[in-house]
């Protein structure tokens, strides 16, 4: 796996996605990891010529993040999954892919202060 970009500001997400799409890279997934300090690390994983490459961004848990669903149609559900499980917000997308907003447990993969992990 490549070194990634060490957590750039999220305003660069769309530029990065355009660049990867133009280079023929396939989007594998978007991993959201709660860092436990009110921020979430978004790891965009790509397959380029058989190698896995990552691009990392650190975002505030509550802020609205640019969506790349118009660059990769397959990103839509990846982003919506992060909305459901981590309580994130992506521009132009609604939660409710896997959970029912208002009925299901809210953001189950977010760290709670009483939990160590």
């Amino acid at each position, binding site marked *: 796996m490549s070194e990634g970009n060490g957590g750039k500001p999220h305003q660069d997400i769309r530029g990065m996605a355009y660049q990867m799409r133009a280079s023929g890279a396939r*989007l*594998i997934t978007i991993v959201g990891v*709660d860092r436990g300090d009110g921020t979430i690390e978004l790891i965009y994983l790509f397959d380029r010529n058989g190698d896995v490459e990552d691009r990392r961004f650190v975002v505030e848990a509550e802020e609205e993040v640019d969506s790349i669903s118009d660059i990769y149609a*397959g990103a839509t559900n990846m982003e919506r999954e992060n909305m459901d*499980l981590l309580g994130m917000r992506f521009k132009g997308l609604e939660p409710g892919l896997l959970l029912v907003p208002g009925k299901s447990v809210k953001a189950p993969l977010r760290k709670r202060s009483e939990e160590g*992990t």
Partner: protein
Amino acid sequence: MSRTTIIPIGPQHPAFLEPLNVSLELKEERVVGATLNLGYNHRGMEHALSLDYKKSQYLVERVCGICSNHHSAAYCQTVEAIYGVEVPERARIIRTITMECQRITSHLLALGHIAEVVGYENLFMQCFRERELVMRLVNEITGNRVHYSTNVIGGVKRDIDAAMERRIEDVMSDLRPRLEELHAIFSRDSTFVKRTKGIGKLTREQAIDWCVVGPVARASGVAQDVREDGFAAYDRVRLRPVVREEGDCYARTMVRMDECLRSVDLIEECLPLLKEGSVVLSVKGHPSGEGISRVEAPRGELMYYVKAIGKLQLDRVKIRTPAFVNVPAVQAMLPGARLADVPVITVSLDPCICCTDR
């Protein structure tokens, strides 16, 4: 002027083995739009798997009952990468054999399923009859038919002795002509061909856009197969990924059919590679660090991300199953299709909702 009608297909529908809902927008008999609704089978597996990394090597198989062995292989590979250990060669070969056995059982299930929705019930029965040979073989190799529970962090739990090697050889010899017979039916039967050729097309560009993987991608001309990474013992065998260009239901079916025969080749190639040696190494201490690993499951690339923190609990487990990216692509395949073809198109994706929802 015809009106637009909305028809919900699923979550409970005779064509689907698991709950998913496709909301169809129709103009008379033609689909003009489709929206996929998921989440009927969400079980919070990623949270459950992060509670105890040791128990998770077994729990992870419960994500899916069809590609269970691939889930445990991918999970164990990821944790092994964090430990920085190399699994004994004999264990890698055994993992390859069981993964290829599971590819055959999974593909025969998918082939039987599409035969059934096309209306060819005795072909469905024939697929499941041949599948049973491998199900029983796997039961003899691992002690289990569905959740093999043979992969552990550091290798495999059960070895294959000389008698079992002969037994595998015999079953493969028995299976090959049966698969060739199935191949002839799927490729030449006029009813099946008419119901699948030119139906539910996904172009190469759409396949890349929707990030699809496995037989769905390969049937649309995208030549990607994670086995070429050489995980387990795939660096020791001759891989010849099956790629077709048509992108329709027929191509997806034939990729799976051809892959069954390739899996028999791979299993037969693996057997002479088995040399004396241990099948598991022990690892000490709790893992710490981040790992990403992937395997080629029957439905395509299966990826695991694990972040370990030197405790029994894991900080994060993320599973990107092949079905999670393949199933949504049905929204690109359905517009323009006839209503009667919707079950065939959906089933041609080999949808696994256990994997999609987790």
